[in-house]
């Protein structure tokens, strides 16, 4: 499991309609930003890649995806400095893999709400 919904449950006070609303928003953003990150990395568009990664940072925190934080911080740093950009393909691959896993997990969760 890459996600942990303890925070979201506590934040929503177990209100399932609110949880569903936030998870749906996350799923939309995660799908969209995954595609954006893959394309931006291919096109060496560091600014777009940095912005897409940044958007996912806080949303992933709320879904309890702790494994994303340091990877995203790395991407942001490399994009800002434009140094060691050869590391980006692997970082983006790892981030999008975690996002895909989180999308699968949360799509299952949403069915139970």
């Amino acid at each position: 499991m890459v996600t942990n919904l303890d925070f979201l449950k506590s934040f929503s006070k177990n209100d399932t309609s609110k949880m569903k609303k936030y998870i749906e928003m996350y799923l939309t953003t995660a799908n969209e930003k995954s595609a954006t990150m893959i394309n931006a990395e291919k096109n060496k568009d560091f600014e777009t890649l940095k912005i897409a990664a940044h958007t996912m940072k806080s949303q992933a925190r709320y879904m309890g995806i702790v494994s994303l934080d340091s990877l995203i911080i790395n991407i942001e740093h490399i994009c800002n400095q434009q140094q060691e950009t050869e590391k980006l393909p692997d970082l983006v691959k790892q981030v999008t893999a975690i996002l895909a896993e989180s999308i699968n997990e949360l799509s299952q969760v949403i069915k139970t709400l």
Partner: protein
Amino acid sequence: MAKQERIIFLVDDDNMQLQMIKDYLDERFEMKLYEYTTGEEAIANMHLNPEIVILDYHLMSVNKSAENGVEILKKMKEICPTTNVIMLSGQDKIAVAVECMKNGAYDYVVKSESAFMRIENIFNNIGEHMKTMHLLKIYKLGFKVLIASIILIIIAAVIAVEMGWATAHMGGFD
């Protein structure tokens, strides 16, 4: 918790963040909350004189040419210096926080699980500050009224004494 009617602007291009803050504040404060996804929209509505603006530092996730939060902060403080602007950011870099505070931000909150409670605390602090400022205004006004009354009493007393003196002297001529 005492509820107060307040005008609040929430400026963030991240829909989920916007919705979560809105839901959290709605449960806790009596307020009129305006949501904007760009800083430019919020600037255009500053005539509403918001007490608090919660402003995202990065406002470029949808529109890359949008001005960033610090530029928007500067403009907001120019238009409405009394508005308290809380900067919200995914970055926990001290330099970013310092830059925001230097440009007039009331506080700086990092987007994380604890951000909501921090915002609530800041709201309460601002509320207390506003109450204190209001009381101070009343005390200042009261003090001015008191001073004016004392001056009037002194003038009246002086006039009374003068009149008494004049009456006594006029009596002397008789």
